[in-house]
């Protein structure tokens, strides 16, 4: 700040110009800044993404070997397996979400910055969303491959479901991640608090996938999608509003 009311010189001694004065980032700009920062960190280390991916593939494998194909058809099993694995690998990604801010107290720098508090939540949620969707991009084809189910025939709808489901679990999971990281039982609390909230999401996603895969008319899937959409709407807003209340201010 080079306001001459308070002092004479600036950092560089350069002449301050009106057009050079800073413009504080608004909500969307700050959200994107924080999200891209998180993604940059993730790209640099890649460990969390890789772990979540490996976990998903391992889970799919274990379910495969726990399955009796003579009792249950693949087309009945696969949707459930897909969305349950989605939930647990998503949790892995959510765990590390606020952990990165705890090391070296980077969260203080975020809170000291002139951005709205909601931007911190939204930025992390966006990064988590891309993380979860990224895992799904590989996990969904893996399900089709391992269980030999024609997911490709419904790929467009499946993409839509994946996006809506990811939005739902990320909205709630990001908030609970922010809370859990400040408690004594962080790794235990995040799944314990989040999973009841994930249930409507998993139910809607699995039921919809199963119906579409069975070739049922889309109208049957619509009630489930409505629940999923409603869930996303309500919880993205509610969690964004709730986030500043979790901060000590």
């Amino acid at each position, binding site marked *: *700040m*080079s*306001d001459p*009311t*308070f*002092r*004479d*010189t*600036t*950092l*560089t001694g350069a002449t301050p110009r009106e*057009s*050079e004065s*800073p*413009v*504080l*980032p608004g909500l969307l700009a*700050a959200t994107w*800044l924080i999200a891209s*920062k998180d993604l*940059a*960190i993730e790209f*640099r*280390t890649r460990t969390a993404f890789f772990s979540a991916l490996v976990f998903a593939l391992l889970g799919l494998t274990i379910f495969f070997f726990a399955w009796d194909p003579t009792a249950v058809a693949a087309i009945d099993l696969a949707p459930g397996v897909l969305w349950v694995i989605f939930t647990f690998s998503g949790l892995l990604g959510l765990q590390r979400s606020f952990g*990165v801010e705890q*090391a*070296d*107290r*980077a969260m*203080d*720098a*975020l*809170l*000291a*910055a*002139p*951005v*709205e*508090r909601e931007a911190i939540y939204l930025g992390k949620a966006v990064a988590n969303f891309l993380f979860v969707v990224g895992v799904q991009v590989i996990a969904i084809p893996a399900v089709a491959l391992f269980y030999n189910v024609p997911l490709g025939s419904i790929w467009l709808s499946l993409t839509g479901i994946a996006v809506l489901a990811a939005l739902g679990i990320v909205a709630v999971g990001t908030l609970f991640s922010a809370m859990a990281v400040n408690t004594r039982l962080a790794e235990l609390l995040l799944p314990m608090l989040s999973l009841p909230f994930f249930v409507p999401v998993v139910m809607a996603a699995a039921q919809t996938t199963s119906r579409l895969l069975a070739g049922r008319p889309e109208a049957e899937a619509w009630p489930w999608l409505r629940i999923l959409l409603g869930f996303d709407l309500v919880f993205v807003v509610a969690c964004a509003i709730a986030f500043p209340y979790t901060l*000590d*201010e």
Partner: protein
Amino acid sequence: MSAALQPKSQPQVHRPVVEAEGLVRTFGARRAVDGVSLSLGGGECLALFGPNGAGKTTLLRLLAGLLAPSAGTCLVGGVALRADGGRAARSRVGLISHASMLYAALSARENVEFAARMYGLRHPADAAMRALKTMRVADRADAPVRSLSRGLQQRVSIARAIVHDPLLLLCDEPYTGLDEVGSAALTEALGERRAHGAALMLVTHNLSEGLALATHAAIMRRGRFVRYEERGAVDGPSYASAYRELVTADV
């Protein structure tokens, strides 16, 4: 309240950078900050001493916008602390702590550029490099921060704190964990900030390091200032013994 340290032909009167009146912060029944008033101008440095739990860190966190005051008023750079959700005041403040507040996986340049963008600077990349150069770590700009020594990390952390040229620089025990070289570099950097007209508040346990930079010195105890005087009025050894007395009085 004069800011300029260089002699000027026309002495200019500046407004104080920070004006606090009766700041209070409670945690439940505990009054961590219990009625603090202070006024600090550009180019001034307040060294803040006191025993653990005196409220020094809480006071700094209040001024940095990390905590909301329970009572009292405060202006930073002429704007109220809570105006515009606190954003206006926060944009004028830089925070240095014993924790680096950096992202270990990212490079020094990326860390400081991120900060530059968060503070809305027009040319974040240039500002980041300038700050890193000022702190003499520009040559290690692209190494991941985790590969730097603690002293260098602290310098990057200071670069991050000053990239937006804050009016008020808050330093919470920044000397912790620094060796002699690092401490000397820190003192030089803070002195330079002061010379550029920023106001400094420095919390430290090290009396000599604190008094070296200070234009004012205060001792805090149980949330209040129990001593507050200009540096010129402070005599090193007697201050040290008075401080020791105050700190041990509670035991």
